[in-house]
């Protein structure tokens, strides 16, 4: 019989990517000495090891690192703690009472009963049928992240003549990567009238390599019964419907999809964690605690961030929050809602359990806008504001509210702050 060890750690962190690493490290620094981190892959770092381009760490480290470099800093630090890392281990189930069932080859079935849990499972890529691309089902339709793994980790080319659908960051980065590997990138097609990726990636990955980026375009048919033989692309109208007579055939052997990321919350759902329909991630409070006591969440499982730096920051908040929960216990007070206001799609955290501490907000706008001011309202009182020359939906914006700000607003209104709102308004007003 395999010796089946039941673990009862203070904290279990599910996922060993940047979010899990940050949370485990922060919890360890905050005083927890019995932490288990569970990772299904053969190594830590999540998606970072395959992100060999640079641009990581500008906010956290104030320097520009590659993905593997960024990950390694945390992996090295984790190795100096006594965090137990279970690699090649798959979590099968998380119960609402925080009991984890996992499996690996070395130990078989594993039960973990931690005092607190941090969800750090990250996200997955949306696939072909989720964006309704008609046609055949040949080999050669691949998501951008999978293509990135093939090339950067495995040294294999998924194709030679490429069409990319979706101008999310990974799609743009892969346009460049395929080109550098000698493949022909026929173009990047984006259904929206604005790009899905960061402006710097559009310039550095498309324009610098003369790769056409076509907005308001989509793929309307995949040709080829065995292997992709081409795609039909078309212009789309204001309702995002393909305009028939603009259809044209593009010869290619591979269609790369960069059509969005979805937080991976199957475990969260089974544990009874309430999800936000807009972010597709758990609703969290200012400590990144979900609606289930003692279950925290951070990084891309909460909502898809544009920068790994924000993943790290939220993971540190979650790690510290979990440590506090374990060491001091915590009663949550009546929650104060955080609402998205004008031109704000969503805000994380979605609620605040404790107004007695500084809060960082992460939010995205609904549509691009020039010369705007982003601000937090406590009740109806505006707190600090920040001017932006230009805002785009792909870009994550941040705002904060300090204890002092909130107390002052309460004083001005002559009552307790019972709601918070983040809004983006015209700078002229």
């Amino acid at each position, binding site marked *: 019989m395999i010796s089946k060890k039941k673990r009862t750690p203070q904290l279990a962190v599910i996922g060993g990517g940047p979010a899990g690493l940050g949370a485990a490290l922060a919890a360890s620094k905050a005083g927890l000495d019995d932490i288990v981190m569970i990772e299904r892959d053969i190594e830590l770092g999540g998606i970072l090891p395959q992100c060999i381009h640079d641009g990581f760490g500008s906010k956290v480290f104030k320097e520009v690192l590659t993905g593997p470099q960024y990950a390694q800093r945390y992996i090295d630090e984790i190795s100096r703690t006594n965090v137990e890392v279970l690699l090649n281990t798959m979590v099968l189930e998380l119960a609402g009472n925080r009991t984890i069932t996992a499996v690996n080859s*070395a130990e078989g079935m594993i039960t973990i009963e931690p005092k607190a849990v941090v969800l750090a499972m990250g996200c997955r890529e949306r696939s072909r049928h989720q964006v309704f691309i008609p046609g*055949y089902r040949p080999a050669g339709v691949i998501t951008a992240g999978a293509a990135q793994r093939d090339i950067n980790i495995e*040294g294999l080319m998924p194709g030679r003549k490429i069409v990319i659908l979706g101008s999310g960051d990974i799609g743009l980065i892969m346009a460049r990567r395929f080109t550098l590997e000698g493949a022909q990138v026929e173009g990047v097609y984006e259904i929206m009238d604005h790009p899905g990726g960061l402006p710097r990636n559009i310039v550095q990955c498309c324009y610098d390599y003369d790769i056409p980026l076509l907005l308001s375009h989509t793929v309307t048919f995949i040709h080829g*019964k065995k292997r992709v033989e081409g795609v039909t692309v078309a212009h789309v109208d204001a309702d995002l419907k393909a305009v028939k007579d603009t259809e044209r055939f593009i010869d290619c052997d591979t269609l790369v999809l960069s059509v969005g990321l979805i937080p991976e919350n199957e475990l969260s759902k089974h544990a009874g964690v309430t999800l936000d329909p807009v972010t597709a991630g758990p609703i969290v409070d200012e400590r990144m605690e979900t609606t289930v006591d003692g279950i925290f969440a951070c990084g891309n499982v909460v909502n898809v961030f544009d920068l790994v730096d924000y993943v790290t920051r939220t993971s540190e908040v979650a790690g510290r929050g979990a440590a506090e929960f374990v060491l001091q216990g915590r009663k949550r007070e009546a929650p104060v809602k955080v609402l998205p206001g004008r031109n704000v799609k969503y805000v994380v955290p979605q609620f605040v359990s404790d107004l007695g501490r500084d809060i960082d907000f992460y939010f995205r706008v609904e549509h691009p806008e020039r010369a705007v001011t982003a601000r937090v309202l406590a009740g109806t009182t505006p707190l600090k504001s920040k001017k932006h020359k230009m805002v785009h939906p792909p870009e994550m914006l941040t705002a904060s509210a300090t204890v002092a700000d909130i107390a002052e607003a309460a004083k001005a209104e002559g009552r307790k702050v019972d709601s918070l709102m983040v809004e983006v308004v015209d700078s002229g007003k």
Partner: protein
Amino acid sequence: MAGSIEDVAPLPASAGVVIIGAGISGCSIAREVVKYTDDVVILDKETDVADETTKANNAEVHSGIGEKYGTLKQKLNVRGNRLYDEFVEGLGIELKRQGLLIVITPRTLPTSMTRWLPKRVVRYLLERIVPRLIMRNGKKKGIPGQHVLTRQEIFEREPHVTRNAIAGVFDPTYGLVSPYKLAMALAENAIQNGAKLFLETEVTDIKVAEGAVASVVTNRGEIRAPIVVNAAGVFADTVADMAGAGGFEIHPRKGASLLFDRDITADYVHSSVAEFRMFHKGHSKGGGAMPTAEGNLQLGPTAIETGDRYDTSISAEEIEEIFERFYYLLPDFPRSAIISAFSGIRAPTLDEDFIIEASDRTKGFVNVAGIQSPGLAAAPAIAEMVIGILQGLGVPTSRREDFDPVRPAPPRFTELTDEERDSLIEKDPDFGHIICRCETVTEAEVVNAIHGPIPAKNMDMVKRRTRVGMGRCQGGFCGFRCAQIIARERGIPMTEVTKDGAGSWVFADETKHMLAEGDAGEAGQ
């Protein structure tokens, strides 16, 4: 080097019975024949069994209510449904008889009929008369257990059904079974009992001598056989013509379906749900919303005439049509939970009935043609009918004493208890290594599929046997690992791994960096 053809045995010079086509019909017949003789050869041009129409079938074991009274397919459907439990016994295949809820709505009667009638009368017809018509129709066809449901009873059973529902009929004998898994299990059990299966073996001619079949010519050689069964699906007319036993035409009709994320739709409907529409055009029985054997929700199928027997594409219009149809029946359907869309080609004849008969022109040649829906439901009865015909042509009539009906099904991690999992992992640590996280499939299951009785040679074959890549990420994470295991187990380079056979390559070549390393290595030698 392992190849696709080199690693299987050469064709035998002769066989007692040759079955052309390893779809659900061919496999059902093979398993029936092998109960009496092991001298059976099954041929299929594809890389896998169930690789064409069967794999895209909607899994419905119909009761027979939808078929025209008195047709062969209606009789075989009702009979097949009754035989099903016995048919799957020992195969390790689950038949879920979760029933069909036929919903009567204001759309049930065409407006061309109702617009002349007072509203009260229409209501009365829909609420009182139509259910009785359905019941009477079922009774005539010999379908047991049907009963009428009131509007309220419909909502208690299926809360997501449209509030426009007026009445319903529940058909409890209707069930679901995985068509390709069943075909595979039947084929495996046939092989286990002595049948020989040859894949990627395309019939190019059938030789006839003195009015009787003499041999079957394939791309891999010729087999002499006194009895040939034509279960060639969409190509049944072509094959029949080769033997001079034709005279019918298959006109391919496409059916497309959509598949949804199990986690989101698991409790969405409990039985299959279909809207009843009288005099509605189209040759599909209307399709329905159904939970598959694995618990994913499936919507479809469509019915579109297509001139192309290979047209397994799905168009934007078809997707829209399915959504439009089911939005009426299930208005709150979570459209975003879609994970896959697929289509297959039905193989009807112009008469729209099954043709199951020994040819009167070419002795020893048996057509099993025009098998479209309810072909899956009728499969046990088709096999029963065909064995009768074959025995008339000389197949032994006494059952083999050494026939073993039990097919050892490989263990599925998800279906085991924790104790069973632990003891498996102890014996084979690969059972503790999850390859596909959406469907919780272990490396050991993939390895078993690759070395199974019908070895999985490509990614789609592994997928059909293990569900790797069938989940919500559609292979985004597990695709590479699966390819890697295939390459390792089959001893081939990654660039030779295919999705589903020749031409469906997955990797073009190695990256520049790797190629450069390779060159340097060679130069150094």
